[in-house]
């Protein structure tokens, strides 16, 4: 093939060269005739133009000849590489190529293995704009979370999450100081799919929201009231336990259970939030048990059941028993979410040694999402370049209550909220959210009291 190509190229080169000479000759003859016969008709400008055209043609032909010479040289070089003239040589060549492919495969496998063993760092960020009644409107660099994961071997892995919350500086005396929190830091020793022991700081498996509280995943920015005041999301604690999953005949289950330090006597009349345990200290000798089982009867339905039990007071006498249930269901473009939790608190004293603990914390929320995308927007800035952009409208009602809160104030503390929201996801992990919150409260305010407000946020995970 090479020889034939060279021959063809040389022929083309020869023809071109002849053509060039002929063209040059004819143009020169015409030029001479024109200048001799009709000199009076040709102006100086015309002659200049003609000369320029000739120069341009000359340059073009020189370029073409240079290209052709380069092609001939390249083809000649190819022809000088060893030619295959026998079956033995062909076999040798195939064997060489097989070896090269093997090396490439090894490199490829090595890269995959290194990627698997490497520590992966993902991050997600949330930036808010809040305009709540009775407060100054604010831009809020809400959080930046680093999510780390890695495997030392096929069965030894780790996970961690570090959160920077409104952290302009770490100087505790500065008004710009925010929080740096360790939300997770665990080691997992994989025994089987059904039994994966885990040690360290873990997100407690109480309710689905606490396990999956990440802003880019959720369709509304504001957390349900119960997810801050009843279940103190992000609720993590230090201890050990296991997670696992199992395929049953007609459904699939996931489960997690841990022994941890547990909630402390820092409960308040409005929240369990400040009772989250320190990571290296327990206020009593008791350890709490917490666990969740999630059942997937079909592709679109998840039912979760959670439980928590542990002593909370410094005297190690009084117990908190928590029970929760959650559901998530998808039907066509609709998605329905709901969660309920209740913590019954035995009589006991709070950390000050004087105030009695509230009797009960309970709350729930129900949320409906509708996902859609008008194809007419595909060629606009909203859709262009994105393979699956989505709009979502959301409606949520949530309520939280603290009964017999132990303070002098009369009655239960109760707060509820309607949230109406809309979001736009150019891709799944990047979302612009707009929502309005309508709050009402009785007695002590749990979260926002009776103030309504606007919340806009941008959330992304990378």
């Amino acid at each position: 093939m090479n020889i034939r190509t060279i021959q063809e190229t040389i022929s083309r080169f020869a023809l071109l060269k002849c053509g060039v000479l002929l063209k040059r000759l004819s143009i020169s003859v015409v030029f001479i005739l024109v200048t001799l016969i009709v000199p009076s008709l040709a102006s100086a400008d015309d002659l200049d133009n003609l000369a320029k055209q000739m120069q341009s043609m000359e340059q073009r032909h020189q370029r073409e000849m240079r290209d052709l010479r380069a092609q001939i040289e390249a083809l000649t070089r190819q022809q000088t590489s060893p030619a295959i003239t026998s079956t033995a040589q062909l076999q040798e060549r195939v064997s060489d190529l097989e070896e090269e492919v093997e090396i490439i495969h090894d490199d490829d496998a090595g890269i995959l293995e290194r990627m698997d063993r490497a520590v992966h760092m993902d991050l997600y960020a949330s930036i808010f704009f809040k305009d709540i009644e009775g407060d100054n409107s604010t831009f809020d660099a809400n959080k930046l979370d680093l999510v780390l994961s890695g495997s030392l071997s096929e069965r030894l892995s780790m996970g961690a999450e570090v959160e920077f919350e409104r952290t302009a500086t770490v100087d505790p005396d500065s008004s710009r100081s925010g929080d740096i929190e360790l939300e997770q830091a665990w080691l997992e020793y994989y025994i089987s799919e059904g039994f994966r022991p885990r040690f360290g700081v873990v997100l407690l498996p109480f309710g689905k929201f606490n396990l999956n509280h990440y802003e880019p995943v959720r369709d509304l920015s504001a957390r349900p009231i119960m997810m801050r005041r009843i279940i103190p999301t992000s609720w993590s604690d230090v201890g050990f336990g296991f997670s696992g999953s199992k395929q049953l005949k007609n459904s699939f289950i996931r489960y997690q259970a841990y022994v941890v330090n547990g909630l402390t006597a820092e409960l308040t009349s409005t929240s369990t939030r400040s009772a989250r345990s320190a990571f290296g200290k327990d206020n009593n000798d008791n350890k709490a048990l917490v666990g969740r089982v999630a059942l997937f009867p079909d592709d679109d339905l998840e039912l979760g059941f959670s439980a928590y039990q542990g002593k909370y007071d410094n005297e190690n006498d009084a117990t908190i028993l928590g029970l929760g249930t959650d559901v998530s269901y998808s039907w066509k473009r609709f998605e329905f979410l709901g969660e309920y939790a209740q913590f019954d608190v035995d009589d006991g004293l709070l950390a000050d040694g004087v105030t009695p603990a509230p009797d009960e914390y309970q709350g729930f929320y129900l949320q409906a999402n509708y996902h859609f995308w008008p194809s007419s927007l595909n060629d606009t800035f909203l859709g262009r370049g994105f393979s699956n952009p989505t709009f979502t409208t959301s409606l949520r009602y949530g309520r939280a209550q603290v009964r017999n809160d132990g303070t002098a104030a009369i009655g239960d503390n109760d707060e509820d909220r309607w949230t109406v929201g809309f979001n736009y996801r150019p891709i799944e992990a990047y979302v612009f959210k707009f929502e309005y919150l309508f709050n009402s409260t009785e007695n002590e305010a749990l979260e926002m009291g009776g103030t309504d407000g606007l919340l806009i946020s941008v959330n992304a995970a990378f």
Partner: protein
Amino acid sequence: MKPVINALLFFLMTFDVGLATDNDPIVVIVHPSNQFSDISTDELRRAYSGGMQRWQDGQKLLVLENPLEHEIRATFHRVILKDDPAKQYFLPDSPVLFMPTVRSSSRSIVIYCKRFKNAIGYVRLSEVRPGVKILTINGLGPDDDAYIFE
């Protein structure tokens, strides 16, 4: 006469193309040493949406995916995941997106399944080559009438 012959030829060509598509169902392939010979649609859905990260024997799953613009991906996602082939999924209880290993062609998927013991991929039956194993889906193979991709 000529238009009639042309019409007949056109009809036969169309018929032939139709047959080729119908008789070339999607199959799920793995390495021959994979101890499993069957996979359920639930497991497939979880594998291709990030919910199943290991085989039942503990090996990490290497999920091989076809390019977004390939028709086979649209069919597979419509049948198994019941969703848009471009849809992305978060890993369970995580803000991290599930990233399958996208190969540029079915041939590449076959080669990967041949090389990696933990790989899973899907190709057309006609693209299967020696060195990989076809898994039945819900106990049915591509020859069965009730096979999911028939």
